[in-house]
């Protein structure tokens, strides 16, 4: 006979207090590289050269990060004599580079949002992080977020994976089947920029080449709290994270 209810009562509430309070428990987020000023241009070039997905761009002595491409391999942290700066935190949700602003869902959805998840060819990592949102620690139901299996009832289309050729059609069908108040959120570096897959004849290189994306959650995979932040942004209960500065006079898509 198990006394799970008794154990439960004794342990008290274990769910994270986020978003009411910041969650600072060690390990909830792997952190991420940020723009770094090096002491010489050579160091900056070496940092840019080590990045497998060209997420780091050297500009003089400085390096700039495109988080949409960073796959969290941590080479720039561990394999460089002078590493990139690394920041903790998880409120990373941002607007796609081609958008000046995205509106959240109408306020009626703030406390009740139904999410349709489409796996457009992901490796399983982002899905695994997403799944954590249902566990007692993150427990997104307390915030009024629910997964649904039918696009007819969904308010948010959450896409993970780089959109492989075989998933392009189903993804579009799902989007078309949703009510028009829908929002689209790309989760993970692959869904934002194609990640390690890049553009190929079998891969569409990110959701934005198929659908209009409203919000992006960078990370590879983004930790559960980052995804939760994304959901809160879509629901209009949080604003997008801080924008990484881009080098002056450069028109490349930076954010």
């Amino acid at each position, binding site marked *: 006979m198990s006394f799970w209810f008794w154990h439960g009562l004794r342990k008290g509430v274990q769910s994270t207090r986020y978003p009411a309070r910041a969650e600072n428990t060690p390990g909830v987020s792997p952190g991420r590289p940020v723009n770094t000023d090096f002491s010489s241009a050579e160091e900056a070039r070496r940092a840019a050269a080590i990045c497998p997905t060209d997420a780091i761009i050297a500009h003089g002595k400085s390096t700039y990060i495109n988080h949409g491409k960073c796959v969290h391999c941590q080479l720039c942290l561990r394999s460089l004599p002078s590493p990139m700066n690394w920041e903790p935190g998880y409120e990373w949700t941002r607007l796609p580079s081609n958008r000046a602003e995205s509106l959240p869902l109408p306020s009626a959805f703030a406390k009740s949002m139904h999410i349709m998840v*489409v796996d457009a060819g992901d490796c399983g990592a982002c899905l695994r992080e997403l799944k954590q949102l249902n566990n007692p620690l993150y427990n997104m139901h307390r915030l009024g977020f629910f997964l649904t299996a039918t696009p007819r009832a969904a308010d948010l289309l959450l896409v993970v994976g780089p959109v492989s050729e075989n998933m392009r059609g*189903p993804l579009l069908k799902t989007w*078309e089947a949703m009510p028009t108040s829908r929002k689209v959120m790309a989760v993970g570096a692959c869904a934002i920029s194609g990640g390690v897959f890049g553009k190929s004849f079998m891969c569409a290189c990110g959701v934005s080449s198929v659908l209009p994306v409203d919000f992006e959650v960078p990370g590879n995979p983004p930790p559960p709290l980052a995804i939760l932040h994304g959901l809160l942004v879509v629901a209009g209960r949080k604003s997008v994270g801080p924008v990484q500065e881009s080098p002056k006079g450069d028109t490349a898509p930076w954010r």
Partner: protein
Amino acid sequence: MAIIAGLSLGAIFVVCAGGVLFSAVLGRKHIPAVLAIAGAFSAILMALTSAAVLLAHQAFEVGLWILDGFGRFTIHLDPLSSIFLFASGVVYFSISLFVGSFLRNQGDDAHPTLHFSILYFALMAAVVLILVAGDTVLFLISWECMSILCFLLINYDPRGQSDKSAGYIMLAMSEAGFLAVAVAFLLLARSAADLSFASLRSASGSLSPQALWLTFLLGFFGFGVKAGLVPVNFWLPRSYTAAPPVFVPVFAGITLNLGFYGILRLNADLMHAGFGTGLLALITGSVTALVGILYATTDGDMKTMLAHSSIENAGIIVAAVGAFLVFRALDQPVAAALAVSAALYHMANHSVYKTLLFEGAGHVEAATDTRDMDRLGGLARVLPGLSAIFLVGCLAISAVPPFNGFVSEWMTLQALLRSAILASTSVRIVFALCGAALALTAALAVTCFVKVYAMNFLGIRRGTWEPQARTQAMSKFPLAILAVVCLLLGILPTYVLPILSESVEPLAGASVTTALVQPFFTATPQNAQLPAAFLQDFHNLGAQTGKGFVPGRGLVVLLRGLEANPVVFAMSPSYSVVALALLLVVTWFVVTRLTKRRTLARRPLWAGGIPRLLPLMTYTGTGFSNPVRVVFQAIFRPNITEDTRQTVAVHFRTAIHRQREETHVVDRLLLKPIGAAVQWLAAFLAGMHHGRLNAYIAYVLAFLLLVLFFYRGG
């Protein structure tokens, strides 16, 4: 009135004979027309005859010639048989038109022969004779004719392809039943003056309880075979499935009823079957209903499934008859009248909607050449008219108001609930359990017919069949009549119950009209048929709406109780249908008003994002009924063999072949053991045949000594 009844009864036989004659004279091409016209005409005469008897409030009796050694043949048409005759008339009217239009639209090789025409009209005459027979000999002769004609019609197959075994099983069971019935009648006749029903009735009072029990058991077995009761109904699904589509409606709508007629005539009219026999009938009926609906829900063949559903309905009817016998034996005439009128009502309803459904199944089979519900689908677009009519049948049989199945099933359950007035706790428990079984049956029936309608008519086409043009040409009129009858029987119970009352009053000793149809239209505070306060209360509820311009006693079915509990139960489908229709209109109006400014977007069907929805991917009947199959695993006890082919390792399967075999629970628990026992006995006795001559001589000697010993005195 008696003249009318006699003339039209005679005319039935004349028309039947005329039908045969015209079929012979006009030739094969015109037989469908003859079947339709002569059949419909004699069906109208059946209804006329019975209506004449019911309206005249007296039985019609005429003695025929005397047969040496058997006594006088008598025709006796009383209200009980009139009810059955009327139901048969209504159903036969539709069936005859259906048969005509069906056969006309078949290919030339399926054209009926004179042979079919003779069998069809002979069966019609035999059915009428059974219902009007006033003595044992005529009854038994026509019963036997009916059995043999049914057997011949099952095997009627101009193309000569069908499997004959179903017909033989049916014939064997019918003959066993016939013998049992004959012995039962002879037991009754032992102390009677002659073989007429009247003298059997007067003689049955002197029978000992043991003889009554034996008569009941024999009769219950014999008639139970025809009525499809567990455990002697294994022939029924087989033969319904094997029978030609034009003939199955006759089975379900006509000959099944003869079983109930026999049970009622023998146990309720000719003798007063006791309390124990009633309980036995009640339990058998409930078990039959449950077993029937379980197999109906899980069966994938449309005809077999409808056959199992007939078994279910037979169970409900016999359970009500059983409740009637118990109530009557315990001196509760009102409850008994309620139970038996529920049984008769359900009998009529079942023959109407089951005929409709079987005719619909015939249409579907003709249109698609398949009966497999896993392969049908999307027929609503191909046959919209048939779809609407079939839907009425499905709603009626699932007991959904405002159709007729609701009224009779509701009355049956109410009758079982009346066991509250019985003194014995154990009897009350039996009633409660049987009531629970019937309630479960009713719930499963809804599942079952949701499946039938949804899998056949909705969704997309799952099989490779192409809709055949010849079905579009087939007339839907015969089915439409029955659909209208379903609706009328469903919304006008207060006009049907007085007619039933006529036939059940002599059996139960109380009138259902006075018990159930309260005179809200005729009662005034002065004449005190109803207490003034009671009348006032119900006037406020609207029970007197329509007084003055609607004929009859009232539109509310209501059983009054004692002071503390003035209303035991009440309902009024007539008012509810009006109220529901008004509600529907108001709702429609409000919703359209509220959503006027809303734009409506139509998108393609959501099918999980797959490139194309293939028919094989859609939900099938088997999938739909699987929950029932899983829950009742203990009853079905399937034998599942799974054969998996794989190429390299367990993860690379190329084909999974899953086979599921079921033995019907009755076959498994009853027939298999009996068969095994007989074979064991035969093997044991075969030990005598060892071939030694001297031992054989010893057998002869021993037998001779035995005979001499017994006859030593004489």
